């Protein structure tokens, strides 16, 4: 390793100037699969909504393929932005995006990982991004997922979206930065 990576710094309060041109609330535009809307709230250590955060999403397609050269056999027809989303929180700390449920992607131990979304979170007050995952409710593959198994049982629920009323294809997933329901974040 001849060079060290450049240190991260916060996005600060005014990142929308640089980020808004690429807001993408439809992560899987034009791609086949089970459509699902995921919404939630971002809360700080006082339980107060965070109105100035942004989430970025990265995911595989319905067959569990990342549209990226590292995933062999990804020479399929692809829309330019497929799998990437960027959504800010609103003045109530709420966010929402629409996508498809991805298929299972391979894990390093040869077993498939349970379907999941990769999430990066940026905001004023965060000196570097937080990295987490969203899993899907009632998916039997969650029980054998390699990453979920590294998380203490008592905290796993923070990574699994919940069925939300009124419609079947709407899921709720909240992000708590601190407190008893603090979301699990990863270091990879």
């Amino acid at each position, binding site marked *: *390793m*001849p*060079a*060290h*990576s*450049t*240190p*991260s*710094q*916060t*996005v*600060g309060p*005014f*990142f*929308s*100037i*640089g*980020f808004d041109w690429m807001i993408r609330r439809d992560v899987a535009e034009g791609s086949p699969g089970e459509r699902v809307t995921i919404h939630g709230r971002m809360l*700080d*250590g006082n339980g*107060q909504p*965070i109105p*100035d955060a942004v989430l*970025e999403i*990265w995911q595989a397609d319905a067959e569990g393929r990342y549209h*990226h050269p*590292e*995933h062999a056999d990804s020479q399929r027809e692809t829309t*330019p*932005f497929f*799998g*990437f989303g960027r959504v800010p929180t609103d003045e109530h700390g709420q966010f929402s995006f629409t996508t498809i449920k991805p298929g299972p*992607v*391979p*894990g*390093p*131990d*040869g077993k498939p*990982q349970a379907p999941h979304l*990769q999430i*990066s979170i940026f905001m*004023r*007050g*965060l*000196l*570097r*991004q*937080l990295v987490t995952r969203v899993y899907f409710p009632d998916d039997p593959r969650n029980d054998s997922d*390699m990453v979920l198994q*590294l*998380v203490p049982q008592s*905290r796993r629920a923070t990574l699994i979206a919940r069925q939300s009323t009124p419609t079947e294809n709407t899921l709720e997933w909240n992000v708590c*930065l*601190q407190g008893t329901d*603090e979301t*699990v*974040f*990863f*270091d*990879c």
Partner: protein
Amino acid sequence: MKSLQGYWKSAPGTQPNHLHPPYVSSIKRAPKYPPIPIPVTLSEITGPSFPKNIVSPNAFDLTRQHTAKPLGERIVVSGRVTDEDGRPIRHTLVEIWQANAAGRYLHKNDQHDAPLDPNFTGEGRLFTDEDGRYRFITVRPGAYPWKNHYNAWRPQHIHFSLFGPAFATRLVTQMYFPGDPLLEFDPIFQSVLDESARRRLISSFDWLGTEPDLALGFRFDIVLRGRSAMPMEP
């Protein structure tokens, strides 16, 4: 399937901790639990690759987005994006945003009593070239006050956002200017505890990048995470 090559771990102090109490906003926003280490999977080593046509070829020049030219000292900011193994990061998206020359952002929440510039938005973007190089034209941003502590001022800076080849290489940072007396007092800059790492956030005056009769040059090279030679154990 074999274990995938993991990313280099950052040396202690070379990346900020989430909690840095002198930066007051971090106190209620930094998680209390340490992040859980996980092995890299395809989910981390892949990431979005954007088509070049999403960025206007003129979006690198922040001084030509309006009918007239912005006020302030025109500068050229250029550099090279590589990974920790020295390989160029080709064709990757770089987004920047900044205050105008008076130290005011074009944002509804910026209440600093300094003038907006009708000829300056403060956003730019481009893709790095074949060799990982980039070049923006802009104006030198002003310092501005903030509420973190008594008489707090942010040093002059430009925000940078880079994607790199993978989800795990995503980086958002800030570029500072050489000799800025405010750096010593800035809790965001000082959140990087290692002094040599901190210095890597400061651009250098760039004689070769300086354009005669046009603009001073500043050079800011950026290093994204690279994958170590040793495969990670699952």
